[in-house]
């Protein structure tokens, strides 16, 4: 039987998969370069993420298991609507971004002849169905994807260990100081999971902040490891790669399986569906708790049906998308603003409520 409450480890698993998808498939919008600076950029982006998530951690500690929107909405309906209006564009933009990245990845690699419309519509249908079934179904599916990913990652590491050249590493943490902070902000902006946690923290059975404690270090270590593989295997060629993890998997060779890119495609397609499902569930929650829309699921379905238009447009005009994406999210400001302001408002509302009680 499915319920709307999941454990904090399931929540962490969901965010972990979602973050990995953003990391692996966003190279065409956020180009990464060969050099040790890459490791510094990731580390600094996580430090920034940790700092930005402090208000959320405080809120989750005091929230008593309720979501930000629930608490704010209960305190003041107007404030709930404002917060909902702030969150909705962020979540919808992340959905568009995920679908454009999926379409670009699929049409460039395995599904070269698949029509764009089908690649976009099918995940949306799957995500909306998942939204109907509730968060638990998505969480259980994410565990399956996590197992598939871990198996793929282990196979890749085992098969390419001989191709790793550690002379590609050198003792310098910053190569290009002038681009360091723009790279850090671009890396930070990939974390659309923070607003998701804000909205969905009420779905955890207990202590939702623990999902943050699991997801943050795990994703940090794994992303650093992935970049270590890219740099030691591809060297300078890493800078020219659009899908380094895909190339890594097609490069891997395990006796019977001469290339692992088929598994790679399966993992990232499933991960994309999970990410869009999470976003759809969060949009539904924002509409329900923030904007107080009665038929929130129908409105969510309508919103995602409308999203097909911008996704189709951007998938045909990637340059426009890259420019838009970098100018809006690449700065990291929208994400930081949403992730700091809303939890603070939520924490204040929760504190006032406690006092009145």
């Amino acid at each position, binding site marked *: *039987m*499915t319920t709307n409450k999941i454990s904090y480890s399931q929540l962490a698993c969901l965010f972990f998969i979602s973050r990995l998808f953003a990391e692996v498939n966003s190279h065409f919008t956020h180009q990464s370069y060969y050099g*040790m600076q890459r490791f510094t950029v990731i580390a600094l982006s996580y430090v920034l993420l940790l700092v930005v998530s402090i208000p959320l951690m405080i809120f989750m500690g005091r929230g008593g298991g309720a979501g930000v929107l629930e608490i704010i909405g209960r305190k003041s309906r107007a404030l709930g609507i404002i917060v909902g209006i702030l969150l909705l564009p962020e979540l919808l933009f992340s959905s568009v971004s995920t679908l454009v990245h999926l379409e670009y990845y699929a049409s*460039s*690699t395995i599904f*070269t*002849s*698949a*029509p764009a419309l*089908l690649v976009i519509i099918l995940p949306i249908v799957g995500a909306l169905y998942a939204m109907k*079934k509730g968060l638990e*179904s998505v969480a*259980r599916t994410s565990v399956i994807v996590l197992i598939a990913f871990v198996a793929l990652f282990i196979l890749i590491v085992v098969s390419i260990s001989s191709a790793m*050249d550690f*002379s*590609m*590493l*050198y*003792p*310098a943490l910053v*190569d290009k100081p002038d681009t360091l902070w723009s790279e850090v902000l671009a890396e930070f902006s990939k974390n659309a999971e923070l607003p998701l946690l804000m909205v969905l923290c009420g779905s955890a059975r207990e202590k939702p902040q623990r999902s943050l404690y699991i997801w943050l270090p795990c994703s940090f270590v794994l992303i650093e490891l992935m970049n270590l593989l890219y740099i030691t295997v*591809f*060297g*300078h*060629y890493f*800078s*020219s790669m659009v899908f380094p993890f895909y*190339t890594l998997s*097609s*490069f891997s*060779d395990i006796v019977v399986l*001469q*290339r692992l890119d088929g598994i790679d495609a399966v993992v990232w397609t499933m991960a994309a569906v999970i990410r869009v499902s999470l976003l759809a569930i969060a949009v539904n929650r924002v509409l329900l708790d923030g904007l107080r829309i009665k038929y929130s699921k129908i409105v969510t379905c309508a919103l995602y049906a409308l999203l097909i238009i911008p996704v189709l447009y951007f998938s045909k005009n990637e340059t426009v998308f890259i420019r838009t994406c970098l100018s809006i999210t690449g700065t990291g400001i929208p994400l930081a603003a949403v992730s700091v302001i809303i939890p603070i408002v939520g924490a204040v509302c929760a504190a006032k409520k406690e006092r009145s009680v």
Partner: protein
Amino acid sequence: MRKNRQALKAYRKPKRTKRGKCCAALLHGAYSRLAYPFARLANTRLTAVFRRAAGAAALVIISAVLCGCVPHVELNEKAIVEAVGIDTEGGKYKITLQYFNTEGSGSSALVDVSKPNVITVYGVGDTVVEAMNDASISCGRQLMFGINQLVLVGREATNEDLSDLLSFAKTYYQCHPKIKVAAVDGKASDVLAIKYKEGASSPLNLSYVLRNSVMQGIMFDSTLITTMEDLKSGTSSAVLPLIKIVEGVTDATEDGKSILVNGAVLYNGGKASADITPPEVSGLMLLGDAMQEISLNAEIDGKSVALVLYGIKTGISSELTSEGLTFTVKTKTAAEITDNQLNTGSPEQYLLVQQAAAEQVVATMRLAVENVIKKYGADVINLEGTVRSRSNDDWLLLSDNWQRALADSHWIFEAEVSVERYGIYME
């Protein structure tokens, strides 16, 4: 009518007692609705198992039917490319593609030797991709590079930028990163015209020749990904094995022709700069720690001792001083004596053998340094990484004039050979 309504109500709101399992819970709603028309036809109450089975069957049928809605190319409409030859003629690229012949093997007979196992098709164009499209139109099939074995670059085509020649790998994403890449002393199409009598296909045999040359320490393992990586280095240098056609050495092919890996072509600045001799290639492989084993002869008092060096480990360190860049190369290797004309086997003589072998190792590496690295300023063994791993500041000082720095560099060699195996018969 009333009975039907009751049945409809029952199936729309199925009992939840058997929905414990995750999969069932996920698909339950969809199954019940899909199974409902069957239930009405049967006019009986469905069991949970039947509902799920009918729903699953309906989903499978729908999925199977939907496949036809997606534009696709059937396997028999694809040219499954096994080898690519790139030549230039009259300022245009001429591409030779060999693709799998479905009538030559597979289908009803395992291998029909009366028919060729590969079909050759040619294409011409201003770019490699354009020439490939031309070949695709000529054969009326969509090109598929998923199991491509090798890419051969003809002598004339080596004058073109190697990155441009291999750019088709960016267009055709399925290209395997481990495709062997080699240069041909002549035309690539001539090498691909060699037909082997044995084996699954001729391109596969050609790739085996390249693979064996790597195992025997004759040549670097030159694949699509390693070549692209090398071309991205500071000097855009790469080494491609050079294939020559030899006649009358085998009866494994229809016309008695075969191929031989004879040295390499050095690419510097992305374009072919010179041919490298086999000893120079061996020297580069020793320096690059890419040699698995190598055979050599040590001369002691006019008598020859044949050795096989194995377990070869080379480390290079660098130092930037006021006199310039200095590299120190340290090589350690074990050795096995394969042919001994000394006939005594005294410890003193073995020490002499080890010393002579070490001198030869140093001589081979020195040859490669002088004739390749210093002469052309070509960084084919990731010396950039060596300098950077010591000090990135040194690299920043040198990076703008890296080729000049390599040409003026000083080298110190140390080699240690230890004879550890003497064969199974002692003197």
